[in-house]
């Protein structure tokens, strides 16, 4: 045979070691990937220097952001901003490696799930110190960007957790849309079960129980929260109540069979159940209405999530920051970075370009100014955000480090329950234990 024993052994061993090494190990070295540009040079005065700006987006947001950067550079010729557009899932891997390698972008589009991971570890700039003014922000929109009392994120737009409704599915079932100001969680179940069976769709209501936002709302209506400054602010019995409700919905066929629910969780927006008409209702964030209507064949509308008491004013809603603007604490131009963020959140120039793409502006004056320029869907959202003001509860704090994954941990344990592999009590306990251990490290 042509294969000589010795040569073969050496070759195979080399493959063994090399192969194993390159896959896992090399990926874990600090700064082994990433790259990106570093904001360098320049003086420290506001409006001077080079800035790198990273954000995740969609085609509309990419275009808007480029236009905003161009407008800003025209007004401030001494500032050079280079953009690093990205996609949500890979954005965080890249940001983590960049931060580890000391090449974090100067300006960072931030999400509520991650702000504490970075902010609590000192990776984000104290924006109040560098000229970001939140005096005109409407109530409840500043605190979401504060970690341990420091402003590390400026609210880039308001949204709120809602139910999107496929009106055509309700038509098909010959049902009117329910009154969302008086309904309870049980009413929602009955409506969902009825519309699902009459219209012949799999999901009466989709993506509801795996949503940490809805679970948070459910807790808030009972005087609890997902998190407080001590850590987890609910216990296993609260989680079990939520899981029991889910089983009740499952028995009533208000939610889809487990394999459908599990599949739905992996679908992108344009194939999601409410968009393609496989769901009557689905959990979403209000700022996504326009994006959803852009891809859905049927008209999509919005409803409030229910309350325990049947009074919308007691449903403990909140203004969520759809995203925030943060700056790296390692930036060489903190003044310039702060100046840009301040311009973005407070100037009509920026707001007139972005309108409500990133959510309704947090700055109350800008809300008024852009109102007339909004698209039809954006106007619906803006009105909704204004309407729910009497229904707001206290603003929830950002998840502490390790808490951003609460939703996915919960959904995994719920899947066990839905497939009948675990009791709600066991799943609730396992869920709470796991989140607690994630918070510890």
């Amino acid at each position, binding site marked *: 045979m042509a294969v000589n024993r010795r040569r073969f052994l050496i070759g195979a061993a080399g493959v063994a070691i090399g*192969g194993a090494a390159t896959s896992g190990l090399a990926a*874990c070295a600090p700064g082994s990937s990433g790259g990106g540009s570093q904001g360098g040079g320049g003086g420290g005065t506001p409006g001077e220097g080079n800035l790198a700006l990273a954000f995740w987006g969609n085609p509309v947001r990419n275009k808007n952001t480029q236009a905003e950067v161009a407008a800003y550079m025209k007004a401030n010729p001494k500032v050079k901003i280079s953009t690093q557009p990205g996609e949500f899932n890979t954005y965080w891997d890249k940001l983590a490696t960049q*931060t580890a390698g000391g090449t974090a972008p100067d300006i960072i589009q931030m999400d509520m799930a991650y702000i504490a991971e970075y902010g609590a570890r000192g990776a984000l700039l104290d924006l109040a110190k560098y000229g970001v003014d939140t005096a005109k922000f409407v109530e409840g929109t500043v605190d979401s960007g504060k970690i341990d009392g420091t402003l590390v994120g400026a609210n880039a737009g308001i949204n709120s957790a809602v139910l999107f409704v496929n009106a055509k599915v309700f038509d098909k079932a010959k049902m009117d849309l329910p009154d969302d100001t008086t309904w309870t969680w049980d009413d929602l179940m009955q409506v969902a079960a009825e519309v699902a069976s009459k219209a012949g769709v799999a999901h009466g209501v989709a993506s509801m129980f795996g949503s940490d936002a809805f679970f948070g709302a459910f807790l808030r209506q009972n005087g609890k929260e997902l998190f407080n400054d001590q850590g987890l602010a609910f216990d296993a019995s609260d989680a079990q109540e939520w899981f029991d409700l889910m089983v009740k919905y499952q028995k009533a066929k208000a939610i889809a069979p487990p394999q459908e629910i599990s599949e739905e969780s992996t679908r992108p927006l344009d194939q999601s159940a409410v968009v393609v008409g496989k769901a009557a209702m689905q959990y979403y964030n209000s700022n996504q209405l326009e994006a959803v209507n852009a891809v859905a064949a049927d008209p999509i509308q919005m409803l409030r999530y229910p309350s325990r008491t049947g009074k919308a004013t007691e449903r403990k809603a909140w203004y969520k920051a759809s995203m925030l603007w943060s700056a790296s604490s390692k930036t060489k131009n903190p003044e310039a970075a702060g100046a840009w963020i301040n311009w973005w959140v407070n100037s009509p120039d920026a707001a007139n370009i972005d309108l409500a793409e990133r959510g309704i502006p947090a700055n109350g004056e800008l809300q008024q100014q852009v109102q007339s320029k909004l698209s039809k869907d954006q106007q619906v959202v803006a009105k909704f955000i204004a309407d729910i003001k009497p229904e707001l509860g206290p603003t929830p704090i950002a998840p502490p480090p390790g808490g951003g994954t609460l939703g996915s941990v919960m959904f995994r344990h719920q899947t066990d329950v839905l497939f009948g592999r675990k009791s709600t009590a066991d799943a609730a306990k396992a869920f709470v234990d796991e989140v607690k251990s994630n918070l510890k490290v």
Partner: protein
Amino acid sequence: MSAISELSTVHRVKARTEAERRLRKREAGKDNKAGYLFLLPWLVGLLVITIGPMLASLYLSFTDYSLIQAPKWVGFDNYVRMLNDERLHNALKVTFIYVFVSVPLQLMLALAIALLLNEGMKALPFYRSVFYLPSMLGSSVAIAVLWRQMFGTDGLVNQVLRLFGLDATTGWISDPKYALSTIILLHVWTFGSPMVIFLAGLRQIPGMYYEAASIDGARRWTMFRQITLPLLSPIIFFNLVLQIIGAFQTFTQAFVVSNGTGGPSDSTMFYTLYLYQRGFGQFQMGYAAAMAWLLVVIVAVFTAINFFASKYWVFYGD
């Protein structure tokens, strides 16, 4: 490499005097220098891209490293934590099932197709390419996405089953009972590269052995067992080692099919996927580095067992 060894054989005639011997030695040194020069690109790559990061990750495995803050030395904490990490144990279970089911299945299929193609059929290059195609595509993101569509509750597979009057609503990738099997199937389907290697091995078995055997009245099955298998055993061994190592490191398919969650219910939570989630999702890079080293040890142990066992069944012609 062979050119260099030929160069040194020129001098293999025995040196007679001390001076001659010294001269020889110096010349041999020159040869080696040239050799190392040619090896340099690879050596630099090995040191900078492989060994360096490996050592760094060994260090990180003893630290608490969030990527954002500097690593903090914690001794064996990460390794101790792995003992009590149930999700890690589940990930090991999933990965072991995957390796021990998919690798033998894939190799058997590869060998069977290679035997078929070796029957001297017309248009062999065409068929060889067709069968090899899935290997090129199989680990790609596009195919995993396609797989997700095909095996969805309303996917092609269920629609075909419905044509036969079955009430097919199974979630082949969304039901924890079936999800792993579907990914195993995807892996088995990419049998192309071991097949090509088998085919090359089969081509090297001299035809006269079969002629002699058939004159002695041996049947096909006997020929396969007595001639093909022993002579092919180094190739089988090579494929086995390679595929086992590869299977332990499976990532892309699981990542794409489950959308990075390892779901449903961790049923497709492969070891590497869990490592990735810990490192990049939960900012526990120290723990992830420790996990990577456990994987190296596991792969090394399995490769060692393989090599040890090979003494008993692999036949080298020389």
